[in-house]
């Protein structure tokens, strides 16, 4: 059930990422309201701040994905850079929580990959907690090799699949 809810949410976010107008339901509505009020305060250079608070910004500018080397789950400098951005965004947008998905490439057995995906998700969660995000805002799930994003059986796809994805979920009732 929750699975479906997450998928629906991602679909909304994806639609929002490319949206220009009013056709994308509640979610877009809220975000445009915010944009208008900010635009009202300042008539020029605040577009940066404007886009900072959007989910689109989180996904494409900060990056909702981090990538790991084969078998690795350690937080490298590159990963830290992205996660620092994620942490800042989450500190400012307290109405959002994150579900951290751990994924692997297809080169490995199912059980090991589940454990490795869990290790990657744990590693990201622990880092974000270190950066001040409350643990109860971060949930984890491992998909192991069940949900590859790139489908070829070459390193170029495998490296894209060895990932942890921070999926934003808007908290209900806040």
């Amino acid at each position, binding site marked *: *059930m929750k699975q479906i809810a997450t998928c629906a949410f991602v679909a909304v976010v994806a639609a929002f990422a490319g949206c220009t107008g009013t056709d994308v339901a509640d979610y877009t509505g809220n975000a445009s309201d915010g944009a208008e009020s900010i635009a009202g305060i300042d008539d020029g250079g605040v577009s940066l701040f404007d886009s900072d608070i959007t989910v689109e910004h989180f996904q494409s500018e900060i990056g909702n994905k981090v990538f790991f080397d084969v078998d690795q789950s350690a937080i490298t400098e590159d990963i830290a850079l992205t996660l620092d951005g994620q942490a800042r965004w989450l500190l400012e947008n307290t109405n959002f929580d994150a579900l951290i998905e751990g994924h692997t490439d297809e080169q*490995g057995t199912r059980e090991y990959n589940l454990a490795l995906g869990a290790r990657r998700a744990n590693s990201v969660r622990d880092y974000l907690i270190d950066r001040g995000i409350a643990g109860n805002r971060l949930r984890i799930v491992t998909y192991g090799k069940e949900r590859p994003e790139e489908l070829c059986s070459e390193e170029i796809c495998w490296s894209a699949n060895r990932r942890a994805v921070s999926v934003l979920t808007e908290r209900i009732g806040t």
Partner: protein
Amino acid sequence: MKIRAAVAVTAIIASCAGFTSALAQTGESPLRIEITEGVIEPVPIATARFVADSEAAAPFAEEITSIIVDDLVGSGLFRNIPEQAHIAKITNFDSPVQYSDWKAINAEALITGSVEVLPPETISVKFRLFDVFLEVPVGDGIKFTGSKSNLRRLAHKVSDVVYSRMLGEKGYFDSRVAFVSESGPKGSRVKRLAIMDYDGANVRYLSDGRSIVLAPRFSPDGSRIIYTSYESGVPRVYIMDLNTLQSRELVESVEMSFAPRFSPDGRKAIFSLNKGSNTDIFEIDVATGNFRQVTFGNSIETAPSYSPDGQSIVFESDRSGSQQLYVQPINGRAKRISFGDGRYGTPVWSPRGDYIAFTKQAGNRFHIGVMRTDGSEERLLSESFLDEGPTWSPNGRVLMFFRESRGEFGAPFLISVDVTGRNLKKVPTPEFASDPAWSPLLR
């Protein structure tokens, strides 16, 4: 020659008693096949088309005969002499066998049988096995009775008796395989729990594909499966009753759990739990749900499997820096058993206790292999882009696993292979298939 009667298939438990005592009288047969690692020539056998005792029985007689031939030939240990080559035709199950007719076509063994329909829904199968060269029956004749819907099982029962009389050990034909049936594109595969006969017949789906499901494993009595499902949003261990298809969460924890297997007595199960920031192995009491930790450390410990006596487990761990196999008395110290090149995972203890089967990854290729329980005598049985997840036939002679092809349209399918490495072949399934688990021999 007396026909041993056994009652109804519902009744196959009752028939087992008769079955065992018939076997006990078999003794050593000169026909006995020894399975060794050398190349063996399949034994030529003739299966006379089973005699139908009425017109109504004719289609059943034909189907049963052909299932028996498929079982025996499919084992790789027998070669069928086709019916067209038979000189003699058996028209009366109780007439004496003319051995010379079967010697002339070089049959070493002969199977004869008859099929009777007992309206409305019951059929009964009688059969005998003969050593053509010694001109003697091998064991007593046996009769199995069951409903028409269990016709395939009746035939598999006959095959199992033939197999056991010629090999001196139990067969594996009257058994099932639980697996994950897969459909849809690689990036968003739909996975359903499924169960089928060992040969791919009678596929039945146990889940609807809404949640990802992984790696079903049978209870030792075959009545339940234990598996991993994403029903709650994260992977957790569930247990399902195969009669009612009711399932429940077995491991009640907020943490993620996966890779479960039953203990040999069915009272416990062993599985992986992601606790804190790490995956370790835990054992659960199936009735109470109480569980306790059995491996400790900061490394990944997963894919556990019990020894047949339930006293030890084998599992994989990357504590040495890469995935390797370890054997551990359930409350004792782990000892590494894999030392070859590459990495090792998914160990499964043979029901005979003699081997551990595993997945090996070396040089970007995957293999299914077996080794002794101390890690010696490692032998690889397969090789491909991705071979994974072996399961043992109930008699420990055959392994089934899945192979995934490469690329964007790559997909998994099931393969079986003898423990000797011979007779590697695809197991037919209606969709893509992965994570096979062989049941115990049915009763």
